[in-house]
C-alpha cells in the first residue's frame, strides 16, 4: 500500500456530474537514461482502475511519460449510493486500493 490522496464529494444529487481527483506516491522510474543505457529497470504505476457500485467507470493506462506521483482528475455521474474503489497497479504487481463511499440523494 502506497500513500495516496483522493478528492471526491461525500454526497451528490442523483444525476449530478462530480469531479474526482486521485494521486498516489510513486517515483515512476522510466527505465531509461539520457544516454539510453538502462541503470534502473522501469517501475511505474501502469494502471488506475476505478469502480463505482461494482462497475468500472474510469481506467487510465500510464506510460513512463507520466510524472512521478501520478495524478489524474476525471468525472462521473452520480447514480446510486455506493462505494467508489480506486486500484493502482505498478510494474512489480503491487496494488494499492482505496475505497470512498458516495451518498446519493
Amino acid at each position, binding site marked *: 500500500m502506497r500513500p495516496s490522496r483522493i478528492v471526491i464529494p461525500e454526497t451528490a444529487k442523483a444525476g449530478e456530474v462530480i469531479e474526482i481527483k486521485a494521486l498516489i506516491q510513486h517515483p515512476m522510474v522510466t527505465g531509461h537514461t539520457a544516454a539510453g543505457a538502462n541503470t534502473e529497470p522501469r517501475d511505474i504505476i501502469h494502471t488506475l482502475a476505478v469502480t463505482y457500485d461494482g462497475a468500472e467507470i474510469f481506467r*487510465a493506462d500510464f506510460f513512463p511519460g507520466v510524472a512521478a506521483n501520478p495524478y489524474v482528475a476525471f468525472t462521473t455521474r452520480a447514480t446510486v449510493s455506493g462505494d467508489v474503489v480506486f486500484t493502482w497497479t505498478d510494474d512489480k504487481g503491487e496494488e494499492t486500493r482505496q475505497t470512498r463511499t458516495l451518498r446519493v440523494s
Partner: protein
Amino acid sequence: MTILDRRQFLIVTTSAAVLPAGKAKATDSDASVSGAGAKKPPSAPYLEARNALAGGRTITLGRVSLDLPRLAENGNSVTLKISVESPMTAADHVKTIHLLSEQNPIATVARFHLSPRSGRAFVSTSIRLAATQNINAIAEMSDGTLWEAQAESIVLLAACTDGG
C-alpha cells in the same frame, strides 16, 4: 509603429516569460525562443504510435480542447487538462483519450478510458516533457471517429530521464 500579430505576440511574450499559461491549438511556432532545445520535427516513435492508433482512419482537428501551459519551467511535471465536445450518451460518447508526445523517448504518455457514465468528457493529469514540443490529445469516439487537439509547450528544464 509595429503591429504584432498573435504569433509574434506569443513569441515576444514567452521570451519575456510573462505568459505562464494559455490554450493553444495547432500552433506552428518555430520555437525561436530559448528553452530545452529548439522544437524538432515529430519523432519516428510518435509517427508510429499515431499511425498505429489511427489504423487507417483520419484524425480530424477539432472537438478536443487541450489546456497545456505555454511555458513549462520544469518538464518533470506539467499539468494539463483535456475536454472533448460530446453529449456522453450511450449512442454518442468518447471511448478513449490518447495523449501523445512528439519528442519524449516513448510517444504514448497516457490513455484514458471513458464511458457514458463519465457524464462529461474531461480528464486532467501531469506529464513529463523531455524537450520543447507539441503534445497531442486524440479522442476516439463511440462511432470510431478520431478528433484531436495539439498544443505546444516550451520547456526550460527538460524532464530528467535518469531514472525518474
